[in-house]
């Protein structure tokens, strides 16, 4: 057997998910473009940058504290997708951007993203190395420095999308005290309650992965979000069938998913 026992169902599910997503993409290319619901948090980003422009204060962005090789790195990558959008808005409106980074590998990518965004907006001369700041790979050293930057530079908007731990509340409280609009997002369930109560808008769980599609309105990316929803329906159906069977004494689904 090539696939390890205990991981066969997961492997088959992953394969089927890939097939489903590719099917949805093909449908979108044939013209069946899905609509996705409005995400207030993402709509608020332009408002937040606009307000920062009006008051002449910078926008703070952070893509979380997880490196690109971690099991939660997908959240960091989702944050970096939003950084590209935020940097373009800042370039368009001539607004200062401060991106604070905790992980060195994320710093390299974030710097490239911001530089490219300013280039795409036709303002490469407006880009400065100060816009992306590597602070240090120590969690609370990062939190202390980022909070200090937010206070000293009086940021008018605080956008934090990525994976967070205990420092999330320190940053959002600093953002609240500077009086800016706060847009946050994470799929780290332990920190979501803090982000929800401390920020004005919060992207919860899977919404951060839909951000890229929502902001670009690219039909193919929207199709992937549709595929995600179809997969969710399949998972819920499997859970319902499993629960009913279990109630009648059958462990068929349980045995299937543990194969």
């Amino acid at each position, binding site marked *: *057997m*090539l*696939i*390890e*026992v205990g991981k066969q169902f997961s492997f088959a599910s*992953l394969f089927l*998910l*890939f097939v489903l*997503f*590719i099917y949805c*993409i093909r449908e979108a290319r044939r013209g069946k473009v899905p609509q996705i619901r409005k995400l207030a948090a993402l709509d608020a980003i332009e408002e937040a940058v606009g307000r920062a422009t009006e008051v002449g204060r910078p926008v703070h962005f952070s893509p979380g504290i997880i490196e*690109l*090789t971690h099991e939660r790195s*997908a959240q960091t*990558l*989702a944050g970096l*997708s939003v*950084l590209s959008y935020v940097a373009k808005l800042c370039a368009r409106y001539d607004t200062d951007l401060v991106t604070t*980074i905790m992980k*060195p*590998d994320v*710093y*390299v*990518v974030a710097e*490239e993203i911001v530089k490219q965004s300013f280039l795409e907006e036709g303002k490469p001369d407006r880009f400065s190395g100060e816009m992306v*700041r*590597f*602070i*240090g*790979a120590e969690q*609370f*050293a990062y939190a*202390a420095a980022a909070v200090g930057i937010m206070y*000293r530079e009086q940021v008018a908007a605080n956008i934090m999308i990525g994976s967070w731990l*205990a*420092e999330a*509340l320190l940053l959002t*409280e600093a953002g*609240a005290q500077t009086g800016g609009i706060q847009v946050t997002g994470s*799929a780290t*369930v332990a920190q*979501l309650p*803090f982000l*929800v*109560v*401390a920020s004005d808008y919060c992207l919860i*769980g*899977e919404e*951060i*992965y*839909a951000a*890229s599609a929502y902001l*670009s309105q*690219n039909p193919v990316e929207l199709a*992937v*979000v549709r*595929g*995600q929803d179809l997969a*969710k329906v399949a*998972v819920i159906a499997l859970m319902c069938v499993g629960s009913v069977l279990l109630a009648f004494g059958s462990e068929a689904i349980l045995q299937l998913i543990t194969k």
Partner: protein
Amino acid sequence: MKNSLPVAIMTVIALIIILDFFVADAPSVQWIKQSGLVLRSWGIVIAAFAMGLGAVNLLRRHTVAISRREPEALYSVVLVGSMVIIIILGIAYGSDHPTYSFLFSNILSPASATMYASIAFYIVTAAYRSFHARSFESWVLLITAVIVMLGKAPIGSVISGFFPTAADWIQAIPNTAGMRAIMMGAALGVVSSAVKMFLGLDRTYLGLRD
């Protein structure tokens, strides 16, 4: 070519890493296990180089601040000084040296613990702001929070046996169900992100959008 080559490299590497997780310890697929191991070590080496770049950025920014005598240059002096001392000690004597351990245990650890402890006060201010019952959702949040707080504090059980029971039920049933639903959605989101990257639909990590 400039855009498709990095996507192709990323896709091949990611597929090997994914297969490495799933494949059994069979001789015919040993090359996948070996490749996965090598690729993960490359990741560590690349991260070390990235750390060097980050350290250069940090030093450059703070040395400029010192040379320009900016208002907060004193903090930059402390940062550059600490950084140089730790780097020299670490390279010259290793992280097991007593001086290195002393600095770590008596400066960095207490400073981190202080930052962590300050979260307690931030929780209070965040709760104060968010528990204003202005909408139905705020009321639900407020009532739930009060029940859970009373259920977990000793005074709750003194007032009524209802509070600990209700707090346990809220945490075990609606809270766990909600958390699992978010985790399930997020897991599917991760797979969808992977597909977008494999197909070159999301190239923001290359600094490219469309």
